[in-house]
């Protein structure tokens, strides 16, 4: 319900003028840029081909199973044939262009030789039979798609007339491009598998030192303070149950903190007053989903290096702050620190084996959230170490379980 004065015209005129000027400016720059950048006809053809190629690449990078449907259209555009088919010889057959309903069932037969040996073949009307007179599918060029010397599929270009040598060449080149992309797709998949394997590996990798030390510390209380020893044993049981759990790759920050609490309780049983901890956790970020066991290795490092080579008490600070769309988590010790170059090699994953945890956490964070979200280590010799990470509050597919 507006009861305002009717039309304050200067404002309207002003706003309209601003909009018109802005639009004009945008259009003008577009126009000028397109004139300047686009060159001769050959250049434009090159650009068009490059553009089509770039459209096909991401689809192929998803693999033949997921991307063939979408990529076939772009590949056919590259070859300018009436029809084109992609197949992996088994479940996937994709047809783009004319005559799909009739010929799609024959694709595997056409591709048989290409699939068996990766050869390039030209098939005539005897192999590509068709009853309909107006059907442009008469001849075919088939060629295999290979990754690392293994044939993973075939590409078939259909034409109405006998294919020229140039077309055969073009089909081979396109097949080579597709093979390259598929190889990269395979590589991506391997990398993801590796990341997953590493997560699994880390679980089994609760440091044996820690288990040994914790049990030792508990044993020392058995006679003097059996009640405390019992408590510690239960904590130990809970800690291991959490660490060895098999389901779910993510957990909430609250759960992770609970596990760290148990871990630190066991460490304190060993170090007593030498170890003190300060926490500052914004309650808003407690429900944030983080990769399972992404903090524990960092705290373990902080304890080890915070107390290494000194008798005075060591102090660890754990911060979790709310920063809009992200949570900032950092773990800070006042210990011996390290050479920044050493920190760099640690993150690269080829440092000393006893600090493999840091590289692993870094890798997992990057694998899940992207390369912008790796660990950041701030350190210098004698100045303590601060390891921090940013965790987005939401990322598709990331759910705490």
């Amino acid at each position, binding site marked *: 319900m507006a009861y305002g004065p009717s039309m304050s015209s200067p404002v*309207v005129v002003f706003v309209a003028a601003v909009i018109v000027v802005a639009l004009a400016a945008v259009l003008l720059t577009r126009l000028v840029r397109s004139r300047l950048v686009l060159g001769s006809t050959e250049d434009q053809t090159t650009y068009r081909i490059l553009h089509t190629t770039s459209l096909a690449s991401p689809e192929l990078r998803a693999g033949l199973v997921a991307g063939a449907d979408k990529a076939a259209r772009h590949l056919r555009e590259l070859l300018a044939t009436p029809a084109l088919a992609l197949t992996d010889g088994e479940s996937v057959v994709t047809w783009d262009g004319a005559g799909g309903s009739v010929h799609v069932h024959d694709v595997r037969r056409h591709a048989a030789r290409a699939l068996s040996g990766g050869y390039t073949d030209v098939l005539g009307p005897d192999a590509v039979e068709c009853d309909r007179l107006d059907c442009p599918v008469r001849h075919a060029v088939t060629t295999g798609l290979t990754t690392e010397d293994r044939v993973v599929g075939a590409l078939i270009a259909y034409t109405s007339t006998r294919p020229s040598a140039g077309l055969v060449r073009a089909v081979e080149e396109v097949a080579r491009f597709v093979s390259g992309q598929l190889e990269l797709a395979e590589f991506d998949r391997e990398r993801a598998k590796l990341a997953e394997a590493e997560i699994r590996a880390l679980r089994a990798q609760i440091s044996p030192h820690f288990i040994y030390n914790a049990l030792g510390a508990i044993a020392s209380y058995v006679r003097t303070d059996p009640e405390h020893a019992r408590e510690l044993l239960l904590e130990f049981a809970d800690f291991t149950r959490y660490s060895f759990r098999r389901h779910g790759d993510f957990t909430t920050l609250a759960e992770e903190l609970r596990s760290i609490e148990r871990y630190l309780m066991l460490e304190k049983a060993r170090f007593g007053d030498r170890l003190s901890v300060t926490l500052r956790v914004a309650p808003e970020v407690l429900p944030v989903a983080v990769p399972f066991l992404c903090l524990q290795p960092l705290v373990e490092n902080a304890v080890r290096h915070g107390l290494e080579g000194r008798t005075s008490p060591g102090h660890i600070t754990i911060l979790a702050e709310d920063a809009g769309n992200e949570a900032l988590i950092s773990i800070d010790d006042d210990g011996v620190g390290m050479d920044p170059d050493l920190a760099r090699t640690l993150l690269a994953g080829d440092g000393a084996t006893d600090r493999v945890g840091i590289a692993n956490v870094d890798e997992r964070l990057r694998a899940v959230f992207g390369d912008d979200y790796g660990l950041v280590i701030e350190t210098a010799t004698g100045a303590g170490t601060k390891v921090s990470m940013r965790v987005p509050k939401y990322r598709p597919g990331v759910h705490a379980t």
Partner: protein
Amino acid sequence: MNTSTGIVAVVVTAAVTVLIGAYGLRAARTTSDFYVASRTVTPWWNASAIGGEYLSAASFLGVAGLVLAYGTDMLWFPVGYTAGYLMLLVLVAAPLRRSGAYTLPDFAEARLESMAARRAASILVVTIGWLYLLPQFQAAGLTLRTVTGAPQWAGPAVVAAVVLVSVLGGGMRSITFVQAFQYWLKLTALALPVVFVLLAWQSDGRPEVAPPEEPVFAEATTVEVTIDVTVDVPMGVVVEADGVVDDAAVSGELPLDRGDHDVEAGTVLEFPAGARIPHASNLEPMTGQAWALPLTAGGDHPLYATYSLIIALFFGTMGLPHVLVRFYTNPDGRAARRTTLAVLGLLGLFYVLPGVYGALGRLYTPELLLTGRTDAVVLVLPGRLVDGVLGETLSALVTAGAFAAFLSTSSGLTVSVAGVLSQDLLRGRVRNPVAGFRLGAALALLVPIGLALSSPFLGIADVVGLAFAVAASSFCPLLLLGIWWRRLTWPGAVAGLLAGGGTSTVAVAFTILGGPPDGWVGALLAQPAAWTMPLAFVVMIVVSLGTQQHTAPGVNRTMVRLHTPENLDLNRGDWDPEDRWRT
């Protein structure tokens, strides 16, 4: 009221807000106790925080102003502001929390698995955020002017500066306890004075609030006009004037004929007792009888306007970006529901009060009808009815509460809008995320300030109502269909968001910049929700049905996740890195 008291109240509120944000909680949350550190926010605290963020200038000042000017029809505003949470509670709260989404664009992406849907949602978040910020700044200008006499631009500038400083300093970034404190401050700031105001009314012999005739000055009244205004004098009257009336300097007796008169800022008019109150030209004079009856205000089509307003407010709350991010703080869906229930209670308590101010304002501060600044009634009333130091203190309290209202709502909105701007719309242009957020915050504030300074002053609650209308026409269909209808596809969602959000935004822009035309077209533009929301639903459903091949691949898994309580042990589908290549 004394100017210096007002300034002190404003400065103290601003300083306390910034300082608590920056330091207070750092001290409060530092502990060596894991139990304390990992304690989640209880539904009560969270509900208070939502209340603190939600109760904006529209609630604190605007509702009372509208009730003063237009009477009982306007009570739909507080009812609607509260009832929106009922819709949220029943249909949205728990599934939204379970989706894991932090912002509305997150939800669009999680449910529809589409970047296009995410981008459309982002644009609408920014639009709604700007629309909602605009009246906050206008109200800030009004408050500062009322209590300190500062020029109109000073209020928006001060609020924007405080918000920018605290947001950039990382202070007020959605700290639950600060926002919860703000709710209780606002409640106290309205509830305490109302006790004294009611006592004063009681001792005055409980005069009737709205006598059935035209409103008159009960006693000889001096009115100081602070902003240029055109008044419509209903009946010839002789006033004592000092200042400029109708472009002529006057000092002494001045006969005012029936009709329009221009009064310049700084003019003082003294009306005799019993004179009928001239109304500012942007207000429609109402007899007391019409004031007390429903369906009398709202232009030519009050029935349509009322229902459209109800739709906008009931269904718009679920699309407010700064409210929804709060639900993320709840540990699970059940806590989200409890929080919403608590919010209903807290808001219900608060919204009893503005109506009382509005009604008593009609009796004791009728000159606001003349100056047209009815939104100031909450600020003026306590000082008018209670004398001495107590009156001063109460006025300062109300001023502080009003300022807290602008600060909390605008900082919450700024953070939400800046987050969306930096994450979705500026990404790629600005590399550094911190710089991106700062740029986003600056942009989030600049646009509404520009609008606040250049557009004509509409009622605060009116403009907020328009923001609700846009939210109801865009995010309400997205959330309801997204949560309760499997077959929603991303092209359908985007089409619906554009259709509903686009048409309502255009209608709102017309209303804000030009004032609506007369007749049915005007009614439809001034209150668009009743036709834009169904339009958005229809477009979303029809386009979705036509594009079933674009159904999100993981829709079944998503639906299971949204609708199963967390304590139920079932396979929700673990994250699998290979999913990215499999779909």
